[in-house]
């Protein structure tokens, strides 16, 4: 279980996060939604250990963490295949091939990041994170820049990978529909200095599939909170 407790973070005089508290159960997908610049990426950086908070603790993130960074962070001198395979010590060729196929990069295995479009780099980054054997998966706007159909495909893939591995997933997104499609719970952050102002538990996937219009009320609720 991932426990984020009393996190405070500021950049110089600018307070960014203030008293952030939440938990993510094992094998739960939690989406974090909030206005631009409210510190969502900072929060993921703190959870991953890349940044140290001014105050507060994160527990349960001591083991392997996979991270789909907002800015890709692919090795520019390595190919798509190498960027993915490098994260594990032994190459599982079949798994890598399948992942590359699933993210739609088949035929681009030997391409280097500079030869790929922004969306392709993002997908390579997603494949790398899925390939890494981790207990926690952090995703910072992972599907930004992908077209609608590709985004739907990636979301389905996330659910498939999650069903198979049952990881703890925390993903930051601007798209309410993405959160409604895959998350078990949604955390809404306030404006800067941000804290969790609302936590919404979503119905099960079966319920969502049976009554998709049932999500309209939740969508409206989120919109009204964010717009305030």
């Amino acid at each position, binding site marked *: 279980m991932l426990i984020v407790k009393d996190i405070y973070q500021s950049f110089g005089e600018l307070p960014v996060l203030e008293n952030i508290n939440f938990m993510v159960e094992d094998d739960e997908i939690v989406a974090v939604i909030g206005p631009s610049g409210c510190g969502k990426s900072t929060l993921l950086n703190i959870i991953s250990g*890349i940044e140290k908070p001014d105050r507060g603790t994160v527990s349960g993130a001591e083991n*392997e963490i*996979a*991270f789909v960074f907002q*800015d890709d*962070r692919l*090795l520019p001198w390595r190919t798509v295949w190498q960027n993915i395979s*490098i*994260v594990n010590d032994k190459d599982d060729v079949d798994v890598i091939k399948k992942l590359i196929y699933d993210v739609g990069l088949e035929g681009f295995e030997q391409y280097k990041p500079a030869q790929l479009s922004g969306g392709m780099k993002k997908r390579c980054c997603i494949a790398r994170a899925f390939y890494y054997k981790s207990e926690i998966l952090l995703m910072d706007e992972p599907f930004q820049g992908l077209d609608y159909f590709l985004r739907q495909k990636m979301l389905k893939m996330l659910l498939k990978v999650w069903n198979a591995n049952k990881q703890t997933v925390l993903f930051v997104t601007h798209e309410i529909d993405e959160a409604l499609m895959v998350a078990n719970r949604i955390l809404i952050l306030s404006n800067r200095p941000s804290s969790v102002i609302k936590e919404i538990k979503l119905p099960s996937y079966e319920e969502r599939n049976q009554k998709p219009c049932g999500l309209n009320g939740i969508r409206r609720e989120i919109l009204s909170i964010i717009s305030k």
Partner: protein
Amino acid sequence: MKNKEITQKYAYKVLSFLLILTVWKVLSTRFSPLVVPTISSVFESLLEIFMSEELLKMIFLTVIRLLIGLTIGVGIGLVTGILMGSSKIFKEILFPIIGLFQTIPPVSWVVLALVWFGFNGRPAIFIVVTSTLPIIAINVYEGISSIDQRLVEMAKLYKYSKEKRFIHVVFPSIMPYFNSAFRIALGSGWKIAVMGEVLTTSDGVGGMIKLARLNVEPENIIAWSIVIVILFYISDFLLGKTFFRKESDQC
């Protein structure tokens, strides 16, 4: 590259070569052979150099001195650059020392080296070391400083081993800096090695240039200088074909 572009590239090179020959020809007709020797006399001297085993040995001697100087200079420069790049304390301590190596003229080093090593060619090696060291050290330091910290964070997060981090993050980041530094060091190394030989010994290419100066044989001075230019292009070409090519394939 398309065939047309390649042809054009070589055509420009031939044109440039012809331009030099034309200017040379014009000057040699206007001035005495002691000031500007004729093209044919220089060509004859060049032939003599390449036909004589004794003279080829002189080239070999300079090559060996340059290689020893470069190896030592690159080795110390690499270690110094890595130390400066990995620790602020080392940077503060070593940077002024590197500054000294950069600013002290090679001629001063030659004079000092003559006192330390004598007239035996070692001063030539020594000044290649002193000129190579700062170029390599500063560039390796710059390379390490410019490593993308976001990639380092990614590598830590995905728990890359130390070797993996070095091979896949640090090494490729430094290599472009090292490559250009090495090319610069090689180019200046030829000149400096020969200068050291001119001033401190009677063998090697520099020793032959000194001999030609004493005998007032400008055609030989030019011929030996052409030998150095040819050697530089060969070494640069070989480096480009092997080491740098492999690296660019890898990166």
